């Protein structure tokens, strides 16, 4: 009993231990790693991935997947940037609608929310597997981004928009504040609300959940909508930070998000996993990226290393659940 308890405790903290070991190794190998500046740098870098990964976690907990987050991020960021810079001219009426900063942000988030809602509706109404539905959205949203931007970046968005991506508030970068708030809200949703409860139940056993009277379709639509909104939020963060909406922003971000979810111990078959696990997963990926850059490892090798870390995390997780 005591051994198995020890094992269970060990496996619960394995990501934290891995992160600690990683940090220890990096601080020995590089004298630039363990500095305040680098610390904020890492946190700022991961804040976008944290937001997307939190949404992805909710989706994966229902045994789904959202491959469209990278494209949704690009489109939402571009919509916000475009509206801020150019507004909308309605042809014919000579009507011009300008947007305030808040208005553009809301419009960006609504764009992501609508695309996520569309994903959820297709998945539940037409029984399209999430992989396929969101794969389709991946190219749809990317195409729309190209149409909206005509293939060119939308840049020079002004200092007040830039505050989101580069500003500081109470001694902490605004980006980190946003990620922290998202984490907090997600923790409340998963632990304290019926929505969270239903998310775990559906992922654990969809049949039993349906027979228990849970409205499966509604829950799934909400979850994909949340994922879309969080991807859009990521889009606004990225756009603000670069002071530019790039038409090919966010490419392969879905993979980083899935990696964070998986390293964080969430089961891709649903029903098992935590928000904090995902956050740790995102931090591990971020630290790893940062460390490899500091150590002057070529970007090509960085990808190889990241891939092996993901494999290792899943293999260890499998071994643990077997031992259980």
């Amino acid at each position, binding site marked *: 009993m005591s051994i198995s308890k020890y094992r269970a405790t060990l496996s619960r903290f394995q990501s934290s231990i891995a992160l600690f070991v990683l940090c220890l190794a990096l601080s020995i190998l590089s004298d630039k790693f363990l500095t305040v500046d680098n610390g904020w740098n890492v946190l700022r870098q991961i804040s976008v991935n944290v937001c997307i990964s939190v949404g992805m976690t909710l989706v994966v907990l229902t045994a789904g997947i959202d491959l469209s987050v990278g494209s949704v991020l690009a489109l939402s960021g571009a919509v916000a940037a475009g509206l801020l810079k150019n507004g909308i001219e309605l042809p014919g009426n000579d009507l011009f609608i300008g947007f305030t900063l808040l208005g553009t942000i809301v419009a960006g988030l609504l764009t992501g929310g609508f695309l996520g809602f569309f994903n959820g509706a297709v998945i539940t109404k037409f029984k399209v597997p999430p992989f396929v539905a969101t794969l389709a959205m991946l190219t749809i949203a990317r195409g729309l981004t190209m149409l909206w931007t005509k293939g060119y970046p939308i840049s020079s968005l002004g200092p007040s928009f830039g505050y989101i991506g580069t500003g500081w508030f109470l001694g902490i970068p605004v980006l980190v504040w946003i990620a922290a708030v998202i984490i907090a809200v997600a923790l*409340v949703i998963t*632990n*304290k*609300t*019926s929505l*969270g*409860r*239903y998310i*775990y*139940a559906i992922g*654990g*056993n969809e*049949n*039993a*959940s*349906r*027979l*228990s*009277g*849970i*409205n499966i379709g509604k829950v799934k639509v909400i979850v994909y909508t949340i994922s879309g909104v969080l991807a859009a939020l990521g889009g606004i963060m990225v756009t603000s930070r670069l002071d530019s909406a790039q038409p090919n922003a966010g490419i392969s971000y879905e993979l980083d998000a899935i990696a964070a979810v998986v390293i964080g111990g969430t089961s891709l078959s649903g*029903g*098992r996993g935590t928000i904090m696990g995902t956050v740790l997963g995102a931090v591990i990926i971020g630290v790893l990226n940062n460390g490899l850059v500091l150590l002057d490892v070529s970007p090509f090798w960085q990808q190889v290393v990241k891939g092996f870390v993901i494999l290792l995390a899943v293999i260890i997780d499998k071994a643990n659940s077997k031992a259980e």
Partner: protein
Amino acid sequence: MLVAEKIGKRFAGVVALNEVSMELPPAKVTAIIGENGAGKSTLMKILSGVYPEYEGRILLDGKEVRFSNPKEAQEKGIAIIHQELNLIPDLSITENIFLGREITNGWDMLDKKSMRQKTQELLNRLKLEVSPDTLIRDLKVGQQQVVEIAKALLTDSQVIIMDEPTSAISDHEVEVLFSIIENLRNDGKTIVYISHKLDELFRIADRYVVLRDGQVTESGSMEGVNHDAIIKKMVGREIKALDREQRKFGEREILQVQNLCLELNNGGRQKALDKVSFSLRQGEILGIFGLMGAGRTELLECILGIHPAGCSGNILVNGEVVKLRSPQEAIKSGIVLVPEDRKKDGLVLGLDVKTNISLSTIRRILQSGFLNRNRETKLAEEYTQSLRIKTPSPNQQVKNLSGGNQQKVVLARCLATNPKVLMLDEPTRGIDANAKNEIYKLILELSQSGLGIIVVSSELPEILAVSDRILVMSEGKITAEFSAEEANEDNILKAAIPKTI
């Protein structure tokens, strides 16, 4: 000669087979007789290598054999034709028959010509007049069954086990099958035949073995045995008498079902439900008995709103017509179901006891919109006490509980919704005798609180023990209704056995 010696098998602590010994001689058809859950399929799966772990020994022609998978059993000449078809719909007959044992030439390339030719020979022998290139999905269910048989014949098996081979085939195909079986017997093969259709057994079987509660209770020659004697041998057991005195129930009809029909898209077979009508009074326990495929589960699913598309007819709760298009709406109207397969449909195994109990009634544990752990634990404790659920704590994962206690957790989840009608599908499947009696006692107690209860079961003693009134279903129809006093094993089973043969 295939001999089983003291075969034992447990599932999660529940005894499925207990020291089962039998001899299966060549050139004979041996019928294995027993109720659902008696252990027939488990035994067959052990003999054919599906379950590699068991106690006891299997002897084939005097030598002990132990199979770690069905392929090994096949290689030793034991083939099984499963009740569920194990064919791949998008492959052809030839490809299915040779799956895993393809004929190849020297360069490991498929020798399609000789496989096709062999398949053609088999199909001729079985009088199935279709091309070997036909895809399985284009065959009728009966024809698919014949393909399964062809698969068993291909390996020239010495022992052929047939588990309900006629459950889905037409009279004509049954005749063909029987002549095949006779030929195989004359060739000296050992045939093991499982069927609920007793008439078939009289026609085809030479010997019988009776399994009851995982034990062999009797065996002998079919000669001189009649229909009623077989039924007696199958059932035999008495359930510990429950205290059924002072059964009283209200006059009010809490649930009425009128002309319920269900058509499922499963290849245009007969209706799954055909004009089913009945009513249920407050405090009454209505037993519904039926053999496999009788439509009993479909009936409950229809009432719960799982098949809104194919289902027609009226459902009235307290005299008012309700349209139930989803389990959610059914639960709102006061109808709940404890499903047949609790692991697949009843529980979220990875979550804990309290979460499972509150799943259908999450509103009861919300406080200003947020889950309240205290209320949740209280709710769970209320039911773990009243239903006597044995769990170390409400935080225990459900998968760690015994079958009987898992079943009680499902029951608790259903009762927490304050239902008017409680439907239980096979409420004691896969749980041990003590837990069974516990569940029966609970059902009686619950009915006394004014709940209308429907118990669907394929176990006769169970139906007889708990029901105030009994409906018998066969082939999607209600074929008989008995009061608790009139009902006995004989008349129920007679009404339940399909008349198509």
